[in-house]
């Protein structure tokens, strides 16, 4: 998807500098996704916007160096001269600084001045910035006193003028040196100590042995006698007090009644040190060849144009990866069936995840790791396979205890099962890419995929740990190495990113992200035979038809998936199949057809035994159960058609009517059975159509919020998202088709590639103004 070809170069550069803007513009967090033209318009609008929202979008992923530069510039009143810039960044990596400045410029947060400095175009409102003389903490009298102490005469008798004069004095080299020279040794020491410890931040005066009582005396007006009746004057043996008083009187240091002291921003110039010296730099990820990422000839354009995926090697690689991806789908369906049969209790906190013990139990049952199970749970929830169901106990009152369980929506399951295999996998990927309860993780996922998609096909990042650290630095503050690690784990499990070795998009992942239609064209031709052995194991080749695989997974448990697949026929799985409508004959026939060798008697007997055990006991979901001591009486009641009774035992009958209704029907015929309430009724799995109403109600709330908050976009978007979800909830059969186009846009600058032959990563950006 060469969407960037349709954007002006500066907009493309903007999107590269502010990747989350691409996320917004291309609707990658929204459903349904906007059209291409809508995306382009949105991108242009975002790039041109001149508001806080645009700036904040950029701040999220400025990267460590750029974020610090922004902060430094803010504390230089929004402008850094070339000399100041050089001074402040002396300890930083020059390439990092250069790249950071480029990013700030491309993101329209700053501009270069003619003299080579940096001028901010926004007020970042980063909070916790330095105290300035203009903060309003100092009174006019205090400012006047400072001017007097400094020997400064402001042009006018206004606070702003006084502050300007003081600032200019500090900025003048000679004047500054003179001021510093006048200070006592202790005062200089304290000044330096504050600068070293916190820079422009606040330091507790207790560091110097002073209390907040003492600081209350630190006022540059000669009116300390007024304090005598409130506080005890500090002992003048506290040398630090005197020194601090000097600094305060000369406008170098401020204090508050909470016991904090700080250096005024205007006075920082006298500190003669950079504002920040703890620069972090992580080596750029080294890009190496990666076999699982396909060859360099695997290009989305070629594939998308129907030209085939590179060479034969790529074709084989795609097929192999597709096969693995489809096994993932089979595993996912196994888990859905398991959760359908074993509804999991929801957390009281209503968090959208399973309790840890349930995760561990599932992991153990399926020989998966806890994190893999959590990934599948998350997918099942976001794809709305799993819905929360309230099961009221006792039904005595609305405030009664509620048992909340996650249950499978049968409509969603039915429509899912009809989908072609690769569509299923891409749906898993789409939901994983799009949805998520944690915005940070979602954004991290996007950024990682976005970055990996900039690597040429066949390339991967050599060192995983280094890469994660780099992502945390490059996309700071939003992305952390820990979050990136979590995302990488999931992407690997989904076969989007290579499972081992260099970190790169798999050939299949690249295809999925850049040429969705190409996915559907992959022919995962397959075998249709396996070996069913007397010891109840079934050995299938790695390329067994996914449909056969899915059916086999319905009657057997996967024991090994390390090449060929080894299943073992399983009693409980067979029982579930029987309950789902299979019979001994159909299962046996399936195994006989599947097996390339004759089925042993032990196998057919096992199936027969398992089926028999499944049929011995059954649970009947019945709102009403009518019990009678006399079978004849019961039979008489059952003959009443309106009662809709079915006799299940000589003295037991069931009815779909509610107890009250049944009683009423029987009462009309002169029968008055006692109404006995006990226990809980079996829950009916909730269906998406019921949920649609809730989603619409939630959407309405967000609409109201949006109106109340001046059409705030976030609320509006959320409302749109909820409405779209409600629509899909009503039509589960259509849901899978709305995610055809979730693909990630190609890198913003046409021709931008990571050159494998250029040693450590370099970025040849091609066009640049």
């Amino acid at each position: 998807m060469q969407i960037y070809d349709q954007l002006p170069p500066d907009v493309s550069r903007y999107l590269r500098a502010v990747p989350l803007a691409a996320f917004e513009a291309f609707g990658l967090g929204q459903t349904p996704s906007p059209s291409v033209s809508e995306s382009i318009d949105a991108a242009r609008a975002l790039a041109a916007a001149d508001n806080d929202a645009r700036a904040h979008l950029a701040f999220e992923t400025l990267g460590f160096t750029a974020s610090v530069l922004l902060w430094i510039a803010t504390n230089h009143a929004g402008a850094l001269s070339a000399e100041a810039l050089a001074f402040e960044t002396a300890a930083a990596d020059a390439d990092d600084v250069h790249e950071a400045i480029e990013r700030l410029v491309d993101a329209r947060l700053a501009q270069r001045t003619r003299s080579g400095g940096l001028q901010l175009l926004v007020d970042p409102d980063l909070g916790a910035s330095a105290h300035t003389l203009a903060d309003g903490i100092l009174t006019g009298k205090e400012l006047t006193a400072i001017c007097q102490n400094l020997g400064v005469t402001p042009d006018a008798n206004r606070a702003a003028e006084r502050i300007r004069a003081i600032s200019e004095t500090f900025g003048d080299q000679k004047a500054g040196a003179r001021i510093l020279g006048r200070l006592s040794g202790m005062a200089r020491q304290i000044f330096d100590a504050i600068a070293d410890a916190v820079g422009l931040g606040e330091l507790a005066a207790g560091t110097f042995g002073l209390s907040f009582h003492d600081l209350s005396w630190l006022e540059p007006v000669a009116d300390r006698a007024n304090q005598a009746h409130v506080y005890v004057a500090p002992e003048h043996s506290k040398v630090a007090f005197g020194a601090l008083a000097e600094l305060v009187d000369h406008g170098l240091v401020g204090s508050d009644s909470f016991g904090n002291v700080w250096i005024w921003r205007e006075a920082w110039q006298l500190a003669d040190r950079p504002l920040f010296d703890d620069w972090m730099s992580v080596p750029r990820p080294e890009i190496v060849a990666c076999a699982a990422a396909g060859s360099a000839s695997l290009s989305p354009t070629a594939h998308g144009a129907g030209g085939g995926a590179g060479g034969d090697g790529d074709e084989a690689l795609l097929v192999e990866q597709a096969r693995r991806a489809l096994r993932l789908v089979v595993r996912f369906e196994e888990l859905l069936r398991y959760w359908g049969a074993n509804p999991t209790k929801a957390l009281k906190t209503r968090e959208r995840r399973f309790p840890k013990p349930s995760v561990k139990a599932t992991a153990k049952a399926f020989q998966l790791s806890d994190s893999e199970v959590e990934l599948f749970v998350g997918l099942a929830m976001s794809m709305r396979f799993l819905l929360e169901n309230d099961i009221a106990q006792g039904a005595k009152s609305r405030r009664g205890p509620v048992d909340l369980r996650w249950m499978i929506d049968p409509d969603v399951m039915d429509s899912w099962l009809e989908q072609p295999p690769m569509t299923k996998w891409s749906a898993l990927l789409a939901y994983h890419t799009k949805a998520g309860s944690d915005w940070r993780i979602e954004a991290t996922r996007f950024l990682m995929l976005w970055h990996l998609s900039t690597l040429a096909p066949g390339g991967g990042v050599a060192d995983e740990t280094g890469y994660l650290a780099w992502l945390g630095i490059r996309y700071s503050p939003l992305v952390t190495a820990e979050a990136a690690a979590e995302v990488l784990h999931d992407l690997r499990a989904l076969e989007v990113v290579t499972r081992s070795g260099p970190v790169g998009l798999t050939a299949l992942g690249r295809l999925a992200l850049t040429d969705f239609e190409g996915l559907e064209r992959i022919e995962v031709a397959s075998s249709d035979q396996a070996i069913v052995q007397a010891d109840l194991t079934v050995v299938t080749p790695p390329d067994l038809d996914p449909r056969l695989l899915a059916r086999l997974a319905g009657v057997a448990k996967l024991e090994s998936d390390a090449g060929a697949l080894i299943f073992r026929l399983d009693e409980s799985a067979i029982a579930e199949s029987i309950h789902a409508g299979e019979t001994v004959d159909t299962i046996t026939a399936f195994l006989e057809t599947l097996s390339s060798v004759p089925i042993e008697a032990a196998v057919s007997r096992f199936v027969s035994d398992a089926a028999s055990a499944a049929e011995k006991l059954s649970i009947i979901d019945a709102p009403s159960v009518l019990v009678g001591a006399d079978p004849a009486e019961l039979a008489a009641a059952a003959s009443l058609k309106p009662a809709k009774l079915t006799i299940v035992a000589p003295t037991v009958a069931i009815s779909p009517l509610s107890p009250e209704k049944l009683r009423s029907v029987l009462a009309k015929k002169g029968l008055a059975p006692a109404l006995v309430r006990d226990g809980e009724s079996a829950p009916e799995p909730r269906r998406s159509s019921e949920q649609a109403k809730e989603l619409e109600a939630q959407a309405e709330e967000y609409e109201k919020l949006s109106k109340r908050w001046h059409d705030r976009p976030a609320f509006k978007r959320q409302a749109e998202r909820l409405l779209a979800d409600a629509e899909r909830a009503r039509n589960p059969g259509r849901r899978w088709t709305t995610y055809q186009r979730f693909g990630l846009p190609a890198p913003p600058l046409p021709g931008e590639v990571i050159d494998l032959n250029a040693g450590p990563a370099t970025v040849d950006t091609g066009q640049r103004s």
Partner: protein
Amino acid sequence: MTTPLPGPLIVQSDLVVLLETAADGAEEARAQLARFAELEKAPEHVHTYRITPLSLWNAAVTGLTAEDVCDVLRSSAKYPPADAVFHEISELMGRYGRLRLVRDHDTVGLALVADRPSLLEEVARSPKIQPLLGERLDGNRVAVRLGDRGPVKQSLLALGWPVADEAGFDTGEELDDVEILSELRSYQADALASWWLDGHDGGGNGVVTLPCGAGKTLVGLAAIATTQMRTLVVCTSVSSVRQWMRECLLHTSLTEDDVGEWSSHRKQIRPITFVTYNMLTWADPAFDDDDDFLDRYPNLRLFDDQEWGLIVYDEVHLLPAPVFRVTSRIQAVRRLGLTATLVREDGKEGDVFSLIGPKRFDAPWTELEALGWIAPAVCTEVRIDLSEVNRMTYAIADQRAKHRLAATAEEKLPVVSELLERHQGEQVLIIGQFVDQLKEIAEMLDAPLVTGRTGQKRRDECFDALREGELPVLVVSKIANFSIDLPEVGVAIQVSGQFGSRQEEAQRLGRVLRPKSDGSVAHFYSLVSRDTEESRFARNRQRFLAEQGYRYEIVDAA
């Protein structure tokens, strides 16, 4: 579709190797695979091997390189193996030899030698290894006590570092030209060779696994003749001891003066001495577990008191715990473990390997059956319906009582009679778990009964009579599970068993697997009460045999 290569092996990325027996080249591939992989199971069509660190390191001992192993896999694979497989094999085999255990003449003990000080430092820091190491001798060497030879190797193995044991063996007292008089079958010779390794220090220890009736005893005797050293043979029972002694005199040049029985009946220490596990691990009631170990188990001194050059452990899977402890102190002696079923329900097979040595040889049961070395066998599970009354009794019984009720169901008795009628004229062994039930059966059939309470003399008389064909039916308890050689018994009826023990099932089948003189097929019946715990256990019991390629016919009792 992936076009498969012509090879018979499917190499999984988790180092499991599946061998398709029907594929071209399967035999040759199997022979190659056995050098560096362990056979896990061998049902009819696909055998499962596992390449483990231990199997690779043992292959390294024989001189096999990582490249050799990888070549076999590449050339015989049906689908191209993942690169990670080769990488892991190289990595694992590369570790062998980096740590060595050698004799240290200065300390008159042992020394652990590393190829690099950093490696020694790394392993020495392990909390499990540290207590086993003595003083640092130099940058690359640290002292190890003689008695800790086994634990050091075991602990380092667990840490992922195999130790090349170059400390050699104590030679023990030599024997005078012991010869084996019977010709070994090809697989017996292979088993011996795999264990002995031409006298290399890396050989002379380990476990040989052969099906029941395949002649493990002869392999043990051949090992004695090969090592030519004073030997202690540890057996499961006195009957087994005497059986070994008979075989010894029959198949070797040893005389009665050369062989001795050390039991509660006799205390003979001879160049070849036979003892039971029970005897060895007899606990003196005058001492308890807090006292000195050898005071508590005084008979274990037998290991130390003589200059044994070889110790043979029959049915080594039964190795009891106290023997584990003392065995680890006699790692300087060559040792051979023999078993048909290296399966322990407690999962401690690894301990056996660690202390006796690795599995050196394994042969699929069905292969030997096909070659005629063991009798072909038909296994049948007879399913018996409980009466309504008994079903109800079972249903409401306590969980612990359920198994016994199902196993001793009276409905089994007529089935036993019917089976005997079907096999009239043949010799039948009836085996069970519960003595009361066995008594009832013995009375019903007017057949002798041998249980744990039966005196040795009576036991020997009954077994001898059965061997000689004088007894048509013998009813036995689990004491006949192991080591009792009954060549002409062709029918075994298992009326009850010990829960889900796979090992017991296989051992009981083994009672009838000696090839019959008339070449007839052996029959093994297992009576199981339908829809009870017993049928669930039966499935587990049958698993081992199913993995060996045995099929169970399942019939309903009429």
